[in-house]
Every structure is written in structure tokens, then in C-alpha cells.
């Protein structure tokens, strides 16, 4: 069987103000029918540039060299008109943001029919019927009607389904999915990934899956190519890469991701530094500057991709770095199986899972001068990368209920009015964004708030930060009820509660130097000049930046460093409570770990209390002490983080946890899954009784009598067993999903 897609020595260079940018430098891979390759790497590593080169979508000023063949037809050098006949027909693409990928002024059915009409000689009627059939295939309910709807009438997940239907429309040979789930909620992500697999199965296409989420790769790819600074630094089957990565960068990437299925109180290993500038690449290995085991040769000669030598029969160094037991066993059996073979290249790969894969054996290759040593000693991330020590907080011995409350929320409610009419705006109803929630955070504690978008997490945060009297219920910060504050008291209290935002690009003013950014809150509170000067330097050091950085502008910093600047600003006034709104979700995987460690270190040092919103449940498990799961403005489950993750009782919690892929193919395949159907219901018109019942997987298994209770009666919070675990479900029971 020959390759559907064969990419050989692809290189792409762009002109820029600062000289040529070599975005892709010599990438090669081949893919056959039905195979999926994950293209993994940090932003700027050349993933998307590669996919655009395959599609022939680069601007004429870019220089594309090498060879890309689709079923032995050379694509490089084809004119745009020739490529247009291939794009959409033989190569289809699914983009990250389904809203901007669909034209807002045409109905979705028309847009799908258009792709069919362009490439096939069919009548409009036939194309339309086919579009409706495709929409039906991708699980759009009532497809004939919905095909007439416009993109804005669909939710994000539904729009991505439409995109997939469009990609499937002409039975392509190759589907390129560029971060297809990044913009979606985790529960929707699981649905879309299933659908992509289905689409691939139906069309028999090869697929390139571009993503930064290692969990997604583990769950759905056959092969992985890890890219760094425009080069493939490691290639192999998904099992090989995830269990026996041989290039320090890959090892680091896999090691720095917090794990959903593991409790950890230790710091994460840190991949220091940032990827190099693509217009000023240093000689030698591009990763050398960040690599703790770099040798002098690494700084002078760039290593070529080479076969990874056979592993020794028994790993010499016991992997004592938190690999799961299953993995250790797998590595031993694999090692044993591979040992007699002259090279691991041809060795069969064990497929322990139930996934019907066509995984063929491909050589495991890595670009590293020390690959032989790494394999010989079985070095893992803990051997190569530094794991910083975390200070042990003073209060850790005190039980939480004996500590002072930093933040108490009781029966908090926030509704937004629904208005209608252009001239005279009538009040037609309201949305309960936050519906009677109770929370408390003790000193030195972290509470994670999780839920899909629209569940009321951000509204809760903003209610707390506003420090004003809530519509109903009460908020008390460090013992001060916000309802009774005077203007002066409110300003005083602001010193003690500060916020760190999600987007490091938007969170600091690009027009101010770092010094002024960090000094800002102190200026507001009238600190003296000298004191500010001293404190800014102190803060810079505290968050791991250099004093000499004070005079630079935010544009000179990477995302992770900007987030550190944001954290320094939040700490300037010595707050007691920090509100963290998705503090690491916008950062690259290798940068995340450093910021997470910093947050934990600061908490230990200053006894901070964190209210943390994150959609990444693995991050929550790593940082938080307690977790609260929100659904449509209500808390459905709350408790100690280990307790909730290990023994989730609410079906929603179970679905959320099982929707997160685990970056370990063996574990991922063997997992117990609770799949959630559909989208969040319209919050303006929530279901009666239990708000979750319309999507509840448990509800469908109940008898009619039992169901009646869910329909009529809103479940109250009750103890879910354990010391600190409360759940709001009539029929709560433990389902382990890890």
C-alpha cells in the first residue's frame, strides 16, 4: 500500500522585517489511507505552516521547497488554480475557529452544497440533498430544517460539526484538522473528536491532526511527529513516543503536563526558557539552550533525525518519576519484545487497547546527539529536568475549618435581564447566570471552579471582584460583607483581593514598560517613590524575572513571562486572596508548568487563597485543594479535589472528567467513559427540576417513577460521603472514570 500523502524535506521560508523566517526546515513524513498523524509542538513551531504548505495556501512571497505528493501527484509548484481543484475535493481542512471559518451571510446547508457544486457535476437540488444528508451524518438534529439556518444560530460544537460535514462532502483523501477542538468546551471536544474519527472512518481519508493537547493525540492518533523550531525532532508511533520518548524536548513536554489521573503535591518539572526566534536561530540544536543535558556539540551541530537504538532489556534506572504502573509494565514488556530484534524499527508495536487501529510499524526516530544514552539509561523527565522544591506552607498542619475564611459566598444570585425590541426595550425574562451558590475559601487554600462555558464561573468571579452588594445572597471577603462597604472601605479592601487574567497578551498594557505596569497598583494607593522602586524589584525577582527587565515593554516578553508580570502586579499590594481566571490556559504546554509552580510557590510563601477558574481539569487537580463543579449557574458537586476526581458522584462531574483525554495512550484506551450528549441548554429557559436532566446519561437509565423526581424536584446539596464532598443529585453514585 502506498502513501496517500508523502512529504519529503519540506521547507518554508517567509520574509520578515527582521530577516527570513525559516518556519519549516526539512520535514518528512508519509501517511496512508485511514491513518492519523498528530503534529505536536508549541506555537511557532511550524505546525500550521506545514498544513498550509500542503494545501498550497501560502502567500506568493513565501518560499516553499521540497516535495509534497498526494497519491504520487506533486503538489509543490502547482498554480493556485490547479490547487483549487484539489483543495476541498481531495484535501479537506477543519479549522480551529468554526465561527470565522463559516461565512456568516449564507446558510450552512448552502455552504456545504457549494463545496459539492464546485467539484462535482450535480444539480443544485442534488447538492442540497447531499448537504442535508451530511448534516444528518454529523449528528445535527432535524438536519433538513437546520440546513437553512445561519452559522450564528449554531453553538460552537455544532458549527464544528458543520465544518466536518463540509470536509467530508467530497470524500477527501486527506483531512487536515488544525486545532479542531481548541476553541471548544471539553465535553464538546470529546464529541468532536469522536466525530472526526467517524468522518475519517467513513471517508477512509488519512488525517493530520495538529494540536498542542497531548491528551488528544494520545487518544486519537497512530503516529506522532513532534515539531520544534520548524523541524521534526521526534517521530514514531503514539505508543513509542508516549512511553519511550527519546528526545529531551518530547520528554519534557510529556513530563510537564499535570496529570488528571494522578495526585501530586510536588512541583512540576520545568522546561526552562522559550523557543528560539525563528529568524535568528542559533547554530546547533535549536533546543540546546533549554536542554539541561546539552553537550558542547549540541551548540554547534544540529542533530539529524536518526533511528532510536534498541532499548536495553531492563531499564537501568528505575523510572521513579511518577509513571503509572501500567506504563512501567508496558515498558518492560515492550523492552523485552524489542530486545531480540536488531533494530526497533521493524519491531511490532503492542496494541493493548480496543481501538481498531491499522497501526503499522514505523521507525522511531529522534533528533538528539545523546539519544543513545537516553535510551540506554531510560532517562525520564525527572532525570533530565529540574524539579524545583516547593516551600511547605505553615498552615498546612491546621485543618481547613479551623483556618480563617478568606472568601465566603452564600446563596449568591446574579440574573441578567433579557430585553427585546429595538425602540422600546421590553423586559421579557431573565437569565440566572449564578443561581444560589455557596462557596467558602479558607486561608491558604485553593478552590477550583470548573464547568463548561456559560456555567456561570466568570460571572461568579466578577461578582466577587466588583465588591458591591449582590442582587441576592452575600459575599464576604476576609470577613467584610461587601453589601455594607463604604466607598473608602471598598478601595481599602481592593488591596487584599487581586486578579490574574487569562490572556497574557491582553492582561498587561502594551504601551507601558514593565516597571510602570507593576508599580501601577502601588501608585493608586499612594506608595512613596522609593518604596515602589524597591517593591517592584522585589516583585520581579519573586516571579522569576530579572531586575533588568523593568525598562522593557511587554512585547519583549513571551506569554509565560507576561503572565508572570501580571502575577507580580497582582501581588504588588500584598493581597490575601487572588482570583485566577484561567491563568495558564493561553500558555504553551512547556510554559504552563513554570507558571503553575510559581503560583504554588507563592501560595506557600504568603499563605494566599486562590479562587481559580480553569477549564483544564488536570491543572485544577494539580493546584487546587478543593473543586466546585458548576452547571447552569449552580454548583452540582463540591469537595476535596482527590475525593471528587477519584469518586465523582454527579453524572456531570463524571462526564467532565472522562471528557479530558489523558496523555497516555494505554491509559486512555482502557478508560471508562461517560459521554455527554448535546450542548448546554438555553440558560434563559432552563429545564424544570434538575437542570442537568436533559443531558444526563444517568437519567436515561432510570425508571419513569425515578425520572419524575428529577423532572419535578430540584436536587439539594447533600453529603456525598467522605469528609468533604457534597453533591446535588437525587441518584448520586460513584462512577470511577479515571
Amino acid at each position: 500500500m502506498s502513501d496517500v500523502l508523502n512529504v519529503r524535506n519540506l521547507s518554508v521560508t517567509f520574509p520578515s522585517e527582521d530577516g527570513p523566517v525559516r518556519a519549516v526546515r526539512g520535514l518528512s513524513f508519509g501517511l496512508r489511507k485511514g491513518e492519523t498523524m498528530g503534529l505536536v509542538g508549541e506555537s511557532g513551531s511550524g505546525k500550521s505552516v506545514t498544513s498550509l504548505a500542503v494545501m498550497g495556501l501560502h502567500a506568493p512571497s513565501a518560499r516553499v521547497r521540497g516535495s509534497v505528493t498526494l497519491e504520487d501527484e506533486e503538489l509543490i509548484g502547482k498554480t493556485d488554480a490547479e490547487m483549487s481543484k484539489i483543495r476541498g475535493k481531495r484535501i479537506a481542512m477543519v479549522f480551529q475557529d468554526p465561527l470565522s471559518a463559516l461565512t456568516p451571510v449564507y446558510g450552512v446547508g448552502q455552504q456545504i452544497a457549494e463545496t459539492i457544486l464546485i467539484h462535482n457535476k450535480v444539480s443544485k437540488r442534488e447538492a442540497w440533498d447531499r448537504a442535508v444528508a451530511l448534516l444528518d451524518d454529523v449528528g445535527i438534529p432535524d438536519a433538513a430544517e437546520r440546513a437553512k439556518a445561519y452559522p450564528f444560530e449554531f453553538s460552537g460544537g455544532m458549527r464544528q460539526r458543520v465544518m466536518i460535514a463540509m470536509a467530508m462532502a467530497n470524500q477527501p483523501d486527506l483531512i487536515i484538522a488544525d486545532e479542531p477542538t481548541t476553541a471548544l468546551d471539553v465535553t464538546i471536544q470529546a464529541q468532536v473528536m469522536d466525530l472526526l474519527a467517524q468522518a475519517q472512518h467513513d471517508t477512509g481519508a488519512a488525517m493530520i491532526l495538529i494540536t498542542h493537547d497531548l491528551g488528544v493525540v494520545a487518544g486519537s492518533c497512530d503516529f506522532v511527529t513532534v515539531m520544534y523550531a520548524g523541524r521534526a525532532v521526534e517521530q514514531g508511533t503514539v505508543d513509542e513516543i508516549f512511553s519511550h520518548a527519546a528526545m529531551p524536548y518530547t520528554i519534557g513536554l510529556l513530563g510537564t503536563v499535570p496529570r488528571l489521573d494522578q495526585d501530586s503535591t510536588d512541583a512540576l518539572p520545568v522546561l526552562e526558557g522559550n523557543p528560539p526566534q525563528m529568524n535568528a536561530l542559533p547554530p546547533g540544536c535549536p533546543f540546546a539552550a533549554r536542554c539541561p543535558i546539552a553537550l558542547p556539540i549540541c551548540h554547534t551541530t544540529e542533530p539529524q533525525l536518526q533511528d532510536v537504538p534498541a532499548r536495553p532489556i531492563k531499564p537501568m534506572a528505575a523510572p521513579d518519576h511518577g509513571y503509572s504502573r501500567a506504563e512501567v509494565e508496558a515498558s518492560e514488556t515492550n523492552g523485552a519484545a524489542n530486545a531480540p530484534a536488531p533494530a526497533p524499527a521493524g519491531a511490532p508495536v503492542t496494541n493493548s487497547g480496543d481501538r481498531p487501529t491499522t497501526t503499522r510499524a514505523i521507525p522511531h526516530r529522534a533528533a538528539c546527539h545523546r539519544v543513545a544514552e537516553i535510551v540506554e539509561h531510560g532517562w525520564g523527565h525527572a532525570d533530565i529536568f529540574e524539579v524545583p522544591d516547593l516551600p511547605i506552607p505553615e498552615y498546612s498542619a491546621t485543618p481547613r475549618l479551623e483556618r480563617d475564611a478568606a472568601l465566603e459566598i452564600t446563596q449568591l444570585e446574579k440574573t441578567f435581564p433579557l430585553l427585546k425590541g429595538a425602540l422600546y426595550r421590553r423586559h421579557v425574562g431573565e437569565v440566572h447566570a449564578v443561581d444560589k451558590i455557596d462557596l467558602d475559601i479558607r486561608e491558604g487554600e485553593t478552590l477550583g471552579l470548573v464547568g463548561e462555558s456559560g456555567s456561570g464561573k466568570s460571572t461568579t468571579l466578577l461578582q466577587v471582584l466588583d465588591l458591591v452588594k449582590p442582587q441576592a445572597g452575600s459575599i464576604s471577603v476576609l470577613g467584610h460583607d461587601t453589601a455594607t462597604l463604604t466607598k473608602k472601605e471598598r478601595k481599602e479592601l481592593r488591596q487584599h483581593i487581586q486578579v490574574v487574567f487569562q490572556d497574557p497578551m491582553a492582561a498587561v498594557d502594551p504601551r507601558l514598560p514593565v516597571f510602570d505596569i507593576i508599580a501601577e497598583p502601588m501608585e493608586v494607593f499612594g506608595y512613596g517613590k522609593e518604596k515602589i522602586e524597591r517593591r517592584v524589584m522585589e516583585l520581579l525577582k519573586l516571579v522569576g524575572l530579572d531586575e533588568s527587565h523593568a525598562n522593557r515593554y511587554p512585547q519583549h516578553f513571551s506569554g509565560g513571562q507576561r503572565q508572570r508580570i501580571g502575577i507580580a502586579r497582582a501581588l504588588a499590594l500584598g493581597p490575601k486572596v487572588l482570583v485566577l481566571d484561567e491563568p495558564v490556559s493561553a500558555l504553551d504546554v512547556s510554559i504552563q508548568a513554570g507558571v503553575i509552580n510559581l503560583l504554588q510557590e507563592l501560595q506557600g510563601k504568603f499563605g494566599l487563597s486562590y479562587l481559580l477558574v480553569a477549564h483544564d481539569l488536570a491543572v485544577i487537580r494539580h493546584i487546587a485543594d478543593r473543586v466546585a463543579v458548576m452547571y447552569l449557574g449552580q454548583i452540582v458537586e463540591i469537595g476535596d479535589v482527590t475525593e471528587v476526581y477519584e469518586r465523582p458522584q454527579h453524572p456531570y462531574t463524571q462526564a467532565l472528567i472522562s471528557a479530558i483525554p489523558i496523555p497516555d495512550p494505554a491509559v486512555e484506551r482502557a478508560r471508562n467513559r461517560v459521554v455527554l450528549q448535546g450542548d448546554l441548554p438555553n440558560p434563559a429557559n432552563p429545564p424544570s427540576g434538575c437542570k442537568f436532566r436533559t443531558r444526563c446519561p444517568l437519567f436515561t437509565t432510570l425508571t419513569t417513577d425515578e425520572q419524575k423526581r428529577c423532572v419535578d424536584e430540584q436536587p439539594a446539596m447533600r453529603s456525598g460521603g467522605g469528609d468533604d464532598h457534597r453533591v446535588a443529585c437525587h441518584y448520586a453514585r460513584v462512577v470511577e472514570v479515571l
Partner: protein
Amino acid sequence: MSENTTGTTPGRDPNKDATIVTGSASAATATSSATDATTAGAADATAPKKSGRLTRGQLTWRRFLRNKTAVVGAIGILILVFMAVVGPHLSYWKYLDIDTANFLQPPSSNHLFGTTQAGRDVLAMTLHGLSRSLLIGFFVAIVSALIATLVGTTAAYFGGWVERILLWLIDLLLIVPFFLIVAVVTKGFDASGNAAWVMLAFVLAILGWMVTARVVRSMTQSLLNKEYILAARYMGMSSGGIIVRHIVPNISSLLIINIALGVGGAILSETGLSFLGLGVQPPDVSLGSLISQGSRMATTFPWIFGFPAIILVILVLCVNAVGDGIRDALDPTSASGGVLTLTDEDEDESLVPTEVAIPLDAEDARERDIRKAQA
């Protein structure tokens, strides 16, 4: 960055690395020493490198310089400003002087641009008119941008009633009959002589900010969603503080562009009005009133009309070229700064792998292994 790595690598003896063969314990020691080096290296990697990253100012400047029209325009403006400022002091004739010996004389060594009917020196008048036009142009552009900023940011930031009232004011001023007001102000207020141009400048500024204010308002609205504004609010900063410190600097490129393009517009309005007799009042002269005087005898005595007209055209062309240049330089998506192309020198062979890396293909690999084994 490169000094840094070369500075640290000699310390890492290759022999020392060769000793790391017994597993993780010794590997860890090597790791920690290496990590320090990489940390330092990484911190430097992000620094604005001498050769690598450019500051925003440098970048804008470079893009501006690449636009040849704009550079020529900038040089032209500098020359004209120099002429307007220094010229009157160098020339023997002042603009009000009357040379009773020379009426309506063509250009000569005594009067480089010739004289008018009343025996006034056209060069001196043109230079004076040029300085009037420049003053009015810059004054109007800057003042109207200031008003636009104040109104636009205030309306967007506070919203509600404040916004509604300010928008109402904008709409009202937009429908006010422009000509009527200018006529009333410059003629009606007995603003004879020198005061007239000041009045004219104020009127032009007061009636020229509304469209910009609307743009400023919508830009401010988009900025309000930025998290640094929220952060400033949650640290207790006052509204005025947020506007001055965070909003205005972030819309400054729009304001700079508006000022640059507004200068040309204001000069044209002024000359147009003066031409019609509504602007600068005699005995004061501006380019507009001078052109108006000369136009009646443009065919017979062309120098009175021609020289000021040429100067005006050059001035407006230069101002607009610079305005366009600034806009393109500040707008990263604009291609008028010149499309960048790659030259053959950009191909760095050292980075292109010599050997073709083998693709993910088992057959290939097996064949190769067999060949290897045979060898």
C-alpha cells in the same frame, strides 16, 4: 544569547558528561548545573537583541523610510517649514511693505516672485501665507484631535447618559451649517486683521472633530474589554486615570494618523475659505487669499497666482504623503510599505538538512535495515 552560551559551555567539561553513565543520580547533578546555565540563557533569549528584535519605534521608522513618497513628503515639509520660519527674516521685503517703485512687476532679482498691484512683494506674502496656513493646519488638526479624544473616550468609558448626551452633541454639530458659522465668525465679529485667522482656526477645530470622536469612541469600546483595563479597575484606579494612562496611549496611533491627515484637510479648508473671502481677512494674507487675488489676472500676470498655488499644492501633497506614510507604517497589515521578498542570500544552506530524512515508512526502513545487515 550567543555570548552567554559560549560563556557557559566551556565550564561543562565533556569528560564530566562522559562520567554520567551510572544512571539518574549523577545525571541529576549534571542536570542541575546545566539548568542554571539554561535559565540564564533563556532570560537573555527574550531580551531585545542588538541584531534580532526591533523596538516598535524602530520598526515603524523603518517601514516609514521604505515608503519613498512619504520620505520625500517629510523632507518637503521640513523645507517649507524652514522657509516659513526663517524666510521672512532673510528677505528684505516684509509682507506688508509696499514698493512704490514696482507695481505688478514680474519676478526679478529685487522681487524674486514679483510684486502685486499694490507693490507688495509676492515672495514675502507667499512665505507669510505659508506660515499662516501651516499654523492653522497644525493647530486645527491637533486641537480637533484633542477634543475628539476627550469626547470619544469619555462617551465610551462612562456609557449610559453621558454617552447619549455626547453622541447627541456630535450629531448636532454634524448638521450645523459650516459655511454660515465661518462667515458669521470671521466677518461678523469685527475680527479684522490678525485676529481673523485665530478665529478661523478655532472654528475649524470646533467643527472638525466629530467624525474622529466617533471613531475614538468605538475604539475605546473595544479596549474596554481588555483585561488590563479590568485589572486597573479592580486595583481601584480612578476613571480619569484609566483613560489617561491606558486608553489614550493605546489609541495614539489612530490619533497620530488623524492629526497627520487632518493637517492637509485643515489647510485646504482654510485656503478654500480664504479664497472665498470668508477666512483670513486683509491686510493679513494666507495662501488662499493670495491665490484669490491672483486668480483674476492669472493669465496676464501669472506670478501672483502661480507661486502661492504651487507652494500650496506642494504643501498639501507633502502633508498627505507623510500622513499616508505614517498610517502605513503604523498599520502592520498594510503592504504599501513595500512587499518583502526573499533573495537567494536568504537561503541558509547550513540549516537545510543534507540528508533527506526518511519518512514514516516501514518498507523503506526495512529495506534499509536489510541493506545495512547485508553490508
